[in-house]
């Protein structure tokens, strides 16, 4: 080992099993990507189930989709994309060693995540108002019934099971992400990250972007089925 690297082993940022910070960082990146692959497998099963039932009961899924408000879905997608932007800027701030900007962008990401979940909560509440909550409150009436009736009311219930399961699983991932962001804010304020060591910020960032990608697919698959013309 060279003299330049030797002092690093006294550095608390470097775990003892690694040769140097670069090797540690590469290992961290490999680890989070492997984890994200398991997440793709996790969500993949749900997307596959969705694909099967959508192909069986397309008109019921279309009817169910038309009850969702595409404008709210679009606005919320943009909020989430904004949170991905601030997350990317958090990582960049960590890279440049700008502690104040790092904390600012992390809090901005948490704020946008909260807005997204708030809108989601409003939408969930709307489903109770419209009586389209499978299992708990499934009794579509009036205009809502007119939307779902052609494809079969029972099969539209299936659409809403997918709606709640997929958006719910996504929301759980976001809540976990918010917890991780909060932890980063606490550590970041104390100056735990520097231009040499910011792997935790990068790892949480990759997770956050992954959750964003899941939503990028959920939005057209749930809100925009079969067109609105």
């Amino acid at each position, binding site marked *: 080992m060279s003299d330049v690297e030797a002092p690093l082993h006294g550095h608390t940022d470097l775990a003892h099993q690694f040769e140097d910070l*670069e090797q540690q960082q590469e290992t961290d*990146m490999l680890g989070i990507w492997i984890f994200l*692959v398991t997440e*793709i497998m996790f969500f993949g099963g749900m997307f596959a189930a969705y694909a099967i039932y959508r192909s069986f009961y397309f008109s019921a899924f279309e009817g169910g989709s038309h009850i969702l408000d595409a404008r709210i879905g679009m606005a919320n997608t943009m909020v989430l*994309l904004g949170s991905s932007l601030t997350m990317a800027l958090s990582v960049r701030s960590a890279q440049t060693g700008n502690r104040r900007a790092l904390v600012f962008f992390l809090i901005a990401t948490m704020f946008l995540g909260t807005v997204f979940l708030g809108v989601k909560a409003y939408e969930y509440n709307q489903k109770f108002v419209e009586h389209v909550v499978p299992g708990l409150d499934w009794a579509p009436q009036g205009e809502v019934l007119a939307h779902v009736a052609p494809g079969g009311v029972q099969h539209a219930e299936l659409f809403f099971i997918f709606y709640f399961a997929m958006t719910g699983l996504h929301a759980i991932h976001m809540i976990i992400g918010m917890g991780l962001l909060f932890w980063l804010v606490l550590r970041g304020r104390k100056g735990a990250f520097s231009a040499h060591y910011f792997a935790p910020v990068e790892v949480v960032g990759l997770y956050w972007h992954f959750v964003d990608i899941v939503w990028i697919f959920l939005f057209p698959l749930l809100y*925009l089925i079969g067109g*609105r013309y």
Partner: protein
Amino acid sequence: MSQLIVPQKTYLFVFFGLIGLTALTTGVAYVDLGAFNTPVALAIAFCKMSLVIMFFMNVRHTGNLVRIIIVAAFFWFALLIAFTMSDYRTRSWTPAPDSWSAAPPTHP
């Protein structure tokens, strides 16, 4: 190692691109494209995903090992969809012989 620092402007451009594509995919849903509404929506979602992976997740500046892992994940997902759909969507093509249906067990 993603030590290369990407200019802030790049992230902003990508963000506005993503916003534009979101507006586009919503707008296209109000246009009758016949059977093509879903493929177009999925193609736009795929573009958005590529932007996020390449720029926000910075895979542009990542090594080949990570790239292989990502490609493997998508290949696995393609297999999942292809084999599942080829099973479920073809079950009704050929009726099962009567002898395959479950008959009540007969006891001598």
